[in-house]
């Protein structure tokens, strides 16, 4: 049984040392979701695991993932559009918008234990927010 105090300590460590340097909620969500093994669903982070244990690192990353996911799924579409714009600007990638619209990588950003209704809402909001940004980009090109 893992001590809650240790997990909270690992969460603080992660937030201060790693997640604080990332710009925006989407960048943090993409980062945390990326630490999860697609086959086993277990999260890995060498830094946290060396300070605590692999089991604690797994729990801490899962908790951070859930928090990041909730902050996005509970946000209005307007806020999500702003967050996505910030993420695109930070990545300086012109093809990001079309890539995200085509291959829908946001589908793998939901936590494993998440309820299906939240996952559906999350994917739906991303699809709409990306379509809004694509429509704005199209209008800018036309002007």
């Amino acid at each position: 049984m893992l001590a809650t105090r240790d997990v909270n300590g690992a969460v603080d460590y992660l937030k201060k040392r790693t997640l604080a340097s990332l710009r925006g909620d989407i960048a943090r969500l993409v980062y945390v979701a990326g630490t999860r093994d697609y086959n086993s669903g277990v999260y890995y982070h060498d830094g946290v695991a060396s300070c605590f244990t692999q089991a604690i690192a797994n729990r801490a990353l899962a908790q951070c993932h859930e928090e990041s996911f909730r902050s996005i799924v509970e946000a209005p579409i307007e806020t999500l559009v702003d967050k996505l714009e910030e993420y695109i600007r930070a990545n300086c990638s012109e093809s990001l918008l079309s890539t995200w619209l085509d291959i829908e990588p946001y589908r793998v950003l939901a936590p494993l234990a998440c309820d299906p209704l939240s996952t559906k809402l999350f994917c739906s909001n991303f699809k709409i927010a990306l379509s809004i940004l694509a429509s704005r980009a199209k209008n800018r090109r036309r002007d």
Partner: protein
Amino acid sequence: MTQILFSLTIGCLLLALVLFWFWQGSASHKLNVSEARNALTVLQIRLLPINLMDRVLDYNDFLFVQKQRAPHVLELLETERKTIVLYWLSHTRQQVKLLMSFHIKSARYIAKLAPAQEFKLALNYLTFLLACDVLQGLIWILGPFRVSKVARYTVFVAARFCAASEQILMITKDPHTEMQQVPRNA
């Protein structure tokens, strides 16, 4: 001759209907107390959080997308929201039906069950089914963003049904000991 054929057809149809009901009844018979408790937990934790439904049907999202002057995105928003609400309706209704089928099957084995509790459960169940049908119809007619009050009411009725079901499940013991008891009306 025509009258006999007509009577036979009606008879066959009635027989098919009775067999269908019997088949449905035996399919739902498999649910036990722990599965019923699971169905209740799924309903209470995963399907009934009112804030999530409010988020899905938030009118501010509609207003924001409308301001973008992109008709295809507005259409996409309405389609997506409609799909989500219909998905929620179908899953919630399925879980509530599962619970109700369990209560129907187990009612005669629970000696402590008061008629008032049974009536409350049945009334909430019927109100929920009615609210579901009304909500489904209104979504098709008005779209998802004008039905938030009915959606909230449907969640409220489902929660009331869950509360009534929870009270009954608390006095329902382990299926193996419970089902072996003498039926209440025997």
